[in-house]
């Protein structure tokens, strides 16, 4: 009979092991469940990195600023298969010289795709693959400060996430993503990125998380573009620290700040973001 009791000890565990999440990343959303994540981000750059990773001071009065609102929609088609869509709206101010500001606003590059859980490791860690299409929701020709590269693209992403190993931390979660994105244009670009996230609950309702993003975009077009959304050949490293609060089981919010300490042929950017996770 003693073994019967072990049933119930196990039940003690499964409710505790569900990690709090900022975004769903490689975690399967779950059949019939919906997640909506609206995000508001601010990005600004004044100085830039040259092609040798040296910081070049921007001309006085110049700079690039972007305000963006992203809407992430996730729907669990089955236990393993999720539909994902990300629709961005951008507002940009590109001050190329004092008194000469290029402003544009509108929908950006939409990402639409599927995420499939390849392997789950005891429902604690998950290995998933995501395949998405990139669809520009604007006409590149009518933007004075382009809202994107203006080309269709494809992204393949491998995601591994789950609880932190017990030997590392008694609670918390991680997510690691490797992505390859290709734009269908003679100048590309081809992009690879690595995103790593570690989250740690500091109280029952509050958590801290650290994201790091390593990004490399390859193109024959080596021209520096202060508009990060329209640049072709560049790379950067971006850490972001977030604080999250869970209000209810269905509603959480996160605020975060980031900075680009290293880069090549890109801006020395910094900014912040606010996002809400709404589970329906």
């Amino acid at each position, binding site marked *: *009979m003693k*073994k*019967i009791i072990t*049933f*119930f000890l*196990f039940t003690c565990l499964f409710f505790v092991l569900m990690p709090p999440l900022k975004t769903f990343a490689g975690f399967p959303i*779950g059949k019939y469940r919906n997640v909506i994540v609206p995000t508001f981000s601010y990005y600004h750059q004044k100085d830039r990195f040259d092609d040798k990773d040296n910081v070049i001071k921007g001309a006085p009065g110049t700079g690039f600023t972007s305000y963006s609102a992203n809407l992430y929609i996730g729907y669990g088609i089955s236990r393993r298969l999720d539909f994902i869509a990300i629709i961005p709206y951008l507002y940009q101010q590109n001050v190329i010289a004092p008194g000469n500001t290029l402003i544009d606003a509108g929908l950006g590059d939409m990402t639409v795709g599927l995420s499939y859980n390849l392997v789950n490791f*005891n429902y604690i860690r998950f290995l998933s693959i995501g395949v998405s299409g990139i669809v520009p929701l604007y006409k590149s020709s009518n933007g004075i400060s382009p809202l994107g590269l203006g080309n269709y693209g494809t992204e393949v992403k491998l995601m591994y996430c789950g609880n932190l190993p017990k*030997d590392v931390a008694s609670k918390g979660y991680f997510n*690691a993503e490797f992505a390859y994105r290709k734009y269908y244009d003679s100048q590309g670009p081809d992009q690879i990125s690595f995103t790593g996230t570690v989250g740690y609950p500091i109280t029952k309702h509050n958590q801290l998380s650290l994201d790091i993003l390593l990004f490399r975009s390859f193109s024959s077009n080596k021209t520096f573009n202060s508009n990060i959304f329209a640049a072709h050949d560049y790379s950067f490293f971006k850490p972001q620290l977030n604080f999250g609060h869970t209000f209810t089981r269905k509603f959480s919010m996160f605020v975060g700040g980031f900075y680009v300490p290293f880069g090549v042929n890109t801006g020395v950017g910094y900014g912040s973001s606010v996002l809400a996770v709404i589970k329906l």
Partner: protein
Amino acid sequence: MKRISYLIILSFIMLSAFSLKVAAQEEETEETGDIVLKAVPQNKNALFKDYEEVKYKLQIRNNTNEFQKGTISYLITTDEGKKIALSSFPLSIKGKADKELIIKVPPRSTGFYRINFMVNLPDYDDTVRRVFGVNPEQITSQLYKPADFDAFWKQSREQLAKVVPSYRVLERKDLSTDEKKVYAVEMHSYGNLVIRGWLVIPRDGKNFPVHYRVPGYVVTLKPNMDNDDFIAFDLNVRGNGNSQDIINIGTDNYSVVNIENKDKYIYRGVYMDCLRGLDFLYSHPNLGIDTSKIFVEGGSQGGSLALITAALDKRVKLLTIQVPLYADIHDNYSISESYERQVFPFKVFRKYQSQHAGFTWDKFYSTWDYYDPQNFAQMVKCPVLMGIGLLDQFCPPRCSMALYNHISSTNKEFVCVPNSTHEVNFNYFMFQNLWLREKFRIP
């Protein structure tokens, strides 16, 4: 830039690799000994189709420094212990070395089979016992349902309804925490017996689904403090835990109390206690109970109690059971005859029978046919999740699957844990958690 980038990537890769390694280790339990024999079925859950070969990978590890020479063999028997295959191979293995063999068994017909792998060396003999299943969802069984079965339980329910519950709900501040309120719950049940349970309500929210748990065989349920998203209601049926005022019997005799009289058999009251627990939940929505989301769960005897609760009361919305005790009691008896040593529950029944002249097995069934969980299965209409352990002798997998196949709900799933005895594993409960959230649409 490059060096720091590489360093960070490397850190994350190491973390990921480390967690993969941990995941792999969590799946395995390391065995030790001079010779270690491990049998791994080709299909992870050890379930096969009747058209496919049954394959096992045998991994033999020689931990000694000596060269070993002997035989390795396997024996397949049916649930009744009938020998159907025996094969032997020479084995030679160097010191501190590993060897792998693939065992292929021709396709078998529907059922469960015991397969024993034996290593025989000059200084070492060992047997690894495993069970595999073939087409478990096609297993059928005969129902021995008395003609007045429905009337019997209708009458039982009517008698229960006449008992005024006189609910008492007492907050136990000494057991409550900052996050959860604990209530001791008391009510009158069938035969006017007082039964008790524990209600644990998270403070963080207003309306919660309910995890209603019924106990295993003479198991004491205590407040379940681990559900953050559910109200936990744990009911000690008569003779269990804190419901032992009148009936206080040990495990050796509990299942035979009044077994010779179907009307007075202990389980009549026990089954009704489970329904009374449901009455309690439905009469207390003021405590934050979401009565549209009540799931009943239990393991072993609790598995059967949960199934019977869902069968007799449609207010149960989901049912999760593990290794349901007493399922297909006729077949359980037949299978138990093949055991070298008797185990529960027929160990208790056989002992009683040997001590009571005139108590025949026909007499036994004239009572038990009213209580066999299998006879309730067709009345279950809600979604069901069941977990079984293939090495279970208390609840043989054939009996559990016969019960499962009689469940009339089409929204049902089962999880098979090949190396478990009378229990399921952590993985099952992780899945159960996801399953519940999926069915109840819990974020």
